[in-house]
């Protein structure tokens, strides 16, 4: 594979990704939105593949498309949401302010990047090899369970807390111990 093929693939994936992201936030039907989000995840995982990060790409598919989005769809279907009607609400001052503020924010970041671009002379040396390594599951596993063991442990506790939290907030019968029992 030569570089140009990768570039062409990247452009195609990026365009689909942006398109699906836009469709995601503009569709009124929640299920359609969710489907566009899935498409978006798919293209992003394609981009990971182009970066030679197979492991991360497949994890993206498994975790986001295979687990999270299925639950999303599940909930949307159970709730049987109708089309969002209030989206086309009339003009309000609040909305104008938020739109203006976010435009300002993007313009600020954009100009910084644009004018800062001349400052950057990227040295791609070493970066390429590093990305190839990062794509491999063995490399990631070795790093995560030796050097990064402590952060991985903390991340595990984070997930544990999230599970406990889901149970605490969602369990049906959860009456506290009455004072006389204690």
């Amino acid at each position: 594979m030569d570089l140009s093929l990768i570039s062409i693939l990247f452009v195609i994936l990026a365009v689909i990704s942006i398109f699906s992201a836009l469709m995601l936030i503009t569709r009124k039907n929640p299920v359609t939105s969710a489907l566009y989000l899935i498409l978006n995840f798919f293209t992003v995982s394609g981009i990971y593949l182009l970066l030679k990060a197979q492991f991360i790409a497949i994890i993206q598919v498994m975790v986001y498309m295979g687990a999270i989005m299925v639950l999303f769809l599940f909930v949307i279907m159970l709730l049987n949401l109708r089309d969002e009607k209030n989206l086309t609400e009339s003009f309000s001052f609040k909305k104008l302010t938020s739109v203006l503020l976010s435009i300002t924010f993007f313009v600020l970041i954009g100009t910084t990047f644009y004018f800062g671009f001349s400052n950057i002379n990227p040295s791609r040396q070493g970066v390429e090899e590093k990305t190839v390594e990062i794509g491999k599951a063995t490399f990631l596993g070795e790093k995560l369970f030796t050097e990064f063991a402590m952060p991985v442990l903390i991340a595990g506790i984070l997930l544990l807390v999230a599970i406990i939290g889901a149970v605490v907030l969602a369990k049906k019968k959860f009456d506290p111990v009455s004072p006389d029992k204690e």
Partner: protein
Amino acid sequence: MTVNWIEILITVIKILLVQIILLTGVAYTVYTERRVSAFIQNRIGPNRVGPAGLLQPIVDVVKLLMKEDIVPNQANRFIHSLAPAISVGVALCTVAVIPFGDKIILFGREIKLQIASVNIGVLYILALVSLGVYGITLSGWSSNSKYSLLGGLRASAQMISYELSMGLSLLGIVLINGTFELDTIVLNQYGWKWNIILQPIGFITFLVAAFAETNRTPFDLPEAEQELVGGYHTEYSSMKFALFFLAEYANVIVSACIITTLYLGGWQFPYLQTFGISPMIMSILQILTFLIKAIFVVLFFIWIRWTIPRFRYDQLMSLGWKIMLPASLLNLVVTSIIVLLLKYN
């Protein structure tokens, strides 16, 4: 690097061959299932079209193609058509990483009997399995019928629950082999070292999870006829229905291939190398070994379907979360301890 056209041509031929075999396999799995079920229920089964009814599948396909394609009034047309496509696509894609044999030498060129040898093969299988839920869920939702919706919801809940134990039981194999590559996993299963012997608990949990993932009895709640008419494909007819049918049986065959590859030694014929036969015959023998093992697993699938009754929904869930998950976790922990001990001794 320039694009190697011959490599691409070989890959295309491999894909075509495998898919043709798979699709024919699907047709005759359906036939076999009907014959076996008839045998189990003391009936005769299809025996009119062709000798012993062997042409029945082709007639069935023609019949389905000629039927009217009905889309319910209130249905979401696009998603309604998309859903069976997803189901079939996922089922057919999974074959890509399965090794059917070792390298074969044809026309002076070494060819791997595997469409794509990726270094994340096991994960690829898991990822595609997890995508298979979409076809069923979306078909259930888009049909706009309560039976379909219930079937779709049941299916997604069931598949998500069993995916966990499936992945965890696979991890045992990954631990033993230290790789995600399926061809290496098969290579390591030489002699008596089949993973079914090294990983008995993992094999059982994986097998049960595979039944649940393919929505076969005793886990066929998504299409429980008595309660849900037909489940997620109630509102489908003609070729779209046929696609779901195709996907189901393709999934059965693919699961059989995966089980063969991962646990039954793949194309390994124990101690074949010691016989001293020519490499060409050895390759053919390997492919035959693989096929026979896979056919055996498919027959096992059919046998189970016609002998074991369906679970109740709560039984299904408690089996998944309270038995399968702890069992596969235990398997994982024990395996990792043993692997660690063997490594440091």
